[in-house]
C-alpha cells in the first residue's frame, strides 16, 4: 500500500501540497482529480522521488520513500507515466522499453561489457519482456522505430509499455488520456481495467476527464490548492458541494453574486 501521511511540499513560499493524507491500496484503481494547479502532479512527483517532501511521510509497503533515490523507488515496484510525452527520443522503441527493465538486470558492468553468458541471457530476457510489453499495448510492430518518429498517441502507448515492463505493483498515471481522441480513451480505460484485473496492478489515475475516472475508478480523491477536499466512491464525490465549487464555481444566486463580486475586488 502506498501511503502519504500528512505530506506537505513547498517551493519557496508556494505551498504546492498541504498536509495531504491519502493512500493507494494494492490492486485498486484510484482517481486523483482537481483543477489546474491543485498539486496532482506534485503528488505524483513526490511519490516517485523527483523531489523529497518538505514534511510528512510517504511509505510503500512499509518502506519510507522520503529519502530514497528515484531508481531505488523504481526497484520497489512503483513506476509512473508523464503528463507530457517523455520518451527517450534518441533511442528505438524497444530500447526505450528495455531500459526500464533494469530492475531485473543485475549483471555487473564488466560482465555486460564482455558479454558473459549470464549477461547475454539477461539481455535476451529483457528484449523478450520489452517486446511482450509492447505487444500488450499493441505497439510491437513499431519496436525498431526511433521513438521520436512515432505519433503522439503511439508514444503514449509506448510510455505505458515502458511503465509496465518492470512488472510494477503500483503505477501512477499522470493524465494518461491527455491528447487522445474519444475512442482511444475508452480503449485506454478498458486496457487499464484489464491490467488491473489480470495482473493486479494498482493504478493512480490523475485525470481531467471525469467520465474516464467514473468508469474505471473505485475511489476518487479530489485536490484543490494542494489540499484534499473530498474522498470516496465517484458517485458520492461528484455530488460533493466543495468539489462542484472547486471545478465549476458557485451557482449564481443573488447572495453568491455579492460574494463573487467581493472576491474579485
Amino acid at each position, binding site marked *: 500500500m502506498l501511503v502519504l501521511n500528512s505530506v506537505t511540499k513547498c517551493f519557496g513560499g508556494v505551498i504546492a501540497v498541504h498536509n495531504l493524507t491519502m493512500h493507494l491500496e494494492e490492486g485498486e484503481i484510484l482517481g486523483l482529480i482537481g483543477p489546474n494547479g491543485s498539486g496532482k502532479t506534485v503528488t505524483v512527483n513526490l511519490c516517485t522521488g523527483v523531489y523529497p517532501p518538505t514534511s510528512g511521510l510517504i511509505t510503500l509497503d512499509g518502506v519510507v520513500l522520503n529519502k530514497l533515490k528515484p*531508481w531505488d523507488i523504481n526497484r520497489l515496484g512503483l513506476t509512473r507515466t508523464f503528463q507530457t510525452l517523455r520518451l527517450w527520443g534518441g*533511442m528505438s522503441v524497444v530500447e526505450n522499453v528495455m531500459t526500464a527493465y*533494469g530492475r531485473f538486470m543485475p549483471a555487473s558492468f564488466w560482465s555486460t561489457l564482455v558479454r558473459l553468458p549470464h549477461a547475454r541471457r539477461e539481455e535476451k530476457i529483457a528484449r523478450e519482456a520489452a517486446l511482450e510489453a509492447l505487444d500488450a499495448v499493441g505497439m510491437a510492430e513499431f519496436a525498431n522505430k526511433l521513438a521520436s518518429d512515432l505519433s503522439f498517441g503511439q508514444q503514449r502507448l509506448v510510455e505505458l509499455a515502458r511503465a509496465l515492463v518492470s512488472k510494477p505493483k503500483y503505477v501512477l498515471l499522470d493524465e494518461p488520456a491527455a491528447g487522445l481522441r474519444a475512442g482511444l480513451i475508452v480503449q485506454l480505460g478498458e486496457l487499464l481495467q484489464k491490467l488491473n484485473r489480470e495482473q493486479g496492478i494498482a493504478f493512480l489515475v490523475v485525470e481531467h476527464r471525469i467520465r474516464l475516472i467514473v468508469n474505471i475508478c473505485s475511489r476518487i480523491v479530489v485536490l484543490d490548492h494542494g489540499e484534499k477536499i473530498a474522498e470516496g466512491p465517484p458517485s458520492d464525490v461528484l455530488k460533493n458541494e466543495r468539489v462542484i465549487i472547486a471545478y465549476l464555481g458557485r451557482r449564481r444566486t443573488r447572495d453568491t453574486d455579492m460574494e463573487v463580486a467581493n472576491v474579485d475586488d
Partner: protein
Amino acid sequence: MAATQKIRRRRWPFFFLLLVALWVLPPTFLSSPYYLRLVSFGWINAIIALGLNMAVGVAGQINLGQAAFVGLSAYVTAMLIKLVGWTWLPSAVAGIVGTVVAGTAVGWVSNRLRGPYLAIVTLGFNLVFQILLLTQVDFTGGPMGLRVKAPEIFGVKMNMQAIYIVLFGFFILIYMLCRLIYYSKIGRNFRATRDDEIVARIMGVNTVRAKVQACMFSAFCAGVAGVLFLLNYLFIAPAAFTPMQSFRYLAMVVIGGLGNLLGSVLGALVITFIPEFLRVWPGLWDVVLGGSILLVLLLFPKGLGFFGEYLSTLFSQKKIEQRWTGQIRSPGGEQ
C-alpha cells in the same frame, strides 16, 4: 532475415580485408616518417574523439577539457620515464590510471553541475593544467616540453612501423569497446540519461553511476591516446594540450555526429588531415575548420556519420534507414 545474414556473412571478408589493409599497408608503403606519423596521429585523434563522443554525444555530459586528459596521461607517462626512471609499460599504465581517476572526478562534478556549468568547469581544468605545464619547468620541461626514448621490445628499439601496428591495434580495441558499451544495457542507460535524465532516474536508471561511468570511460580513451601520442612523437609540449585543442576534439565529434561512433572516426580523420593540406596557406586552417563545421551542421545536421553509415552498408545489407534508427541487434552479434 536468413538471406540478410547470409549476405552479411559473405561481405564480412571484405570488411576484414579493409581492416588488415589499414593495419598493414601504411607502415609498409609510407616510407616518409612524416606521412606515417600523420596517419598515426589520425588514429590517435580518432581514439580521443570516440572517448569524447561517449561522454558528450552518448551520455550527454559536455567536456571542454579533453585535451587536458590526453596531456595528463602523456605527461605522467613521460615524467615517470624521465624523472623516476621507470620503463615504458608501468609508466603508461600509471598514466592511464591517473587519467581515469581524473575522469572520475569529472563524473563526480557532472552529478552536481550540468550543461554549461560542467562545460566551464572542464574548460577551467584545461586552463589550469596548461598553466601548470608551463610554470612547473622542473617537472614538465615548461614550454620546451619533454623528450623520451623509444621503448625497446626484447632489446630491440621499436621503430615507427612497429609503433603504428601497436597504435592501430589500440584504435580497433577502443572502437570495439565503444560499440560493446553502446549496444548494451550500459549504453542504453547513457543514452537515457542524455535524452531525459529525470525520466531515466524514475525508470530505474542509476544516473549518478551512468555519468561517472561515461566520464571514466571517456578519460580512459584519452589516457590511452595520451600514451600513444607520446609513443608516436616521443616528444610532448604544452602546445598540444591547449583548450583550443579541446575545441578541435569537440569539433571532430560534432562534425562526425553526436552519438555516432563511426562518425567520430571520420570527423577525427578529416580534422587531422585537412590542416596538413592547408599548410601552404598558414592561418587558413581555422577559417576552414569553422567554415566546415558550419557547413556540416547546415547540410548534414546529424554529422558525417551519415557517410560512415552509408559505407558500412557496403558490408552489410541493412538499409541506411534502419541503421539511422538505432538498430536492434543481439549484443555483440555483428562484431
